[in-house]
């Protein structure tokens, strides 16, 4: 199954936009899965789960990091997945 990255995002959220920009910068040097952007406020369950932690990066549904991109952790988890 192909890997999937998801960013729990909020409209007009600078930290969220920073994480998306950091992911795109990382993509220049690392082969990253596609990124799906989900509006955390579009669903009450998502809001309850992630509303206070945005942005949240998930790899196949598992939290990689919150608030800011942890590139080292993402690369480690991608390596584990492909091993």
């Amino acid at each position: 199954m192909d890997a999937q990255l998801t960013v729990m995002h909020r409209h007009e959220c600078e930290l969220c936009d920073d994480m998306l920009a950091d992911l795109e910068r990382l993509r220049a040097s690392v082969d990253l899965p596609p990124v799906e952007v989900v509006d955390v406020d579009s669903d009450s369950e998502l809001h309850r789960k992630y509303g206070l932690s945005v942005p949240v990066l998930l790899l196949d549904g598992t939290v990689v990091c919150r608030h800011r991109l942890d590139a080292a952790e993402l690369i480690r988890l991608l390596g584990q997945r492909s091993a």
Partner: protein
Amino acid sequence: MRRMPITRSSDRLTWLALLLAAAAVGTAAAAAEAVPANASPSGAMPAPHGAASGGTDSTKPDAPQKLLDRMNEALTSLNYDGVFSHAQNGEIETLRIIHRVAGGKVMERLVSLDGSGREFIRTGSELACYLPDERRVLVEQQPQKSLLLGNLPRFDANTRRFYEIQMGQRTRLIGRRAQLVLVTARDQYRYGYRLWIDAATGMPLKTQLCDGRGRVIEQVVFASLETPRAIPDSAFKPDISTAGFEWMRQVPMPGNARAPFAAWYALRLPPGFHMSVRTEQVIPGAGGPVEHIVYTDGIASVSVFVESHMHPDHALSGGTQLGSSSAYATIVDGHPVTAVGEVPPVTVRFIASSVKARPPAH
């Protein structure tokens, strides 16, 4: 916008960081003094939970001042729980702030989410600083008005002589309607602010401290913000275990203590500044009591510390920056004098260089 220095300072600047923490106490008191007489008492809710903008008409000349009043009221009286980024000097830190007013008692918790694990928990006037990287907990007394999120500008007729206040654009931030308010300094002795204020709650969703050229010196931006009706007590417990930590309590000065050295004052001050607070403090690492004098223009504050003894570790001399704060140190009649504040370097240099000992009364 000063808040407790939550990030770890370099050893060289540890003393200055301690002065900054002490300054936060004094400048909060100065901010409390600057509250307009007609402001609502703390504890009164500014607007019902989730209410609309409160009817502030942005075309009226006093509209930006009303918005600032509403913002300060929201900061002190609302329950809120949010995560924000704090950027200064090219460094970004993510923090969570929780603030609750219940039964007239204020509780606050500020947590670093970026690894240091440092937490600040305020219960009424007591502030506990949990420093897991130092395996220490510092407990000190703080004025009731002090906010862990930082104090933001309040305006009265006097401060308008030194700052211009204008409405900016309406915009949206984190899914909310926000109104920009621009606070511009009229001279080189103080910084300005840009404040994006939430139309629904009055909370500042984004704040910038700016120098005279409009460059951003410090920025706070919320990524999430909720204003719940109630916040449980469990939200004010530290995440870290304090087993084996050293607890250090601030030693209050005896009420009848007399200054063991001459009273100090600034012979000259930048326009608009006046003395608001004079106290004597015990600061860890100081060889004796430290005289603390706060000068304010009603918005910006400068703390002046005069030590009773020379101490080799405090041999700061000249100007330096710590985050958004400027500091200037000098020696006056054998006493180390340090002026520190969220103001341009020229202001702390002006004030520190003007400090003199008052001649003893005969």
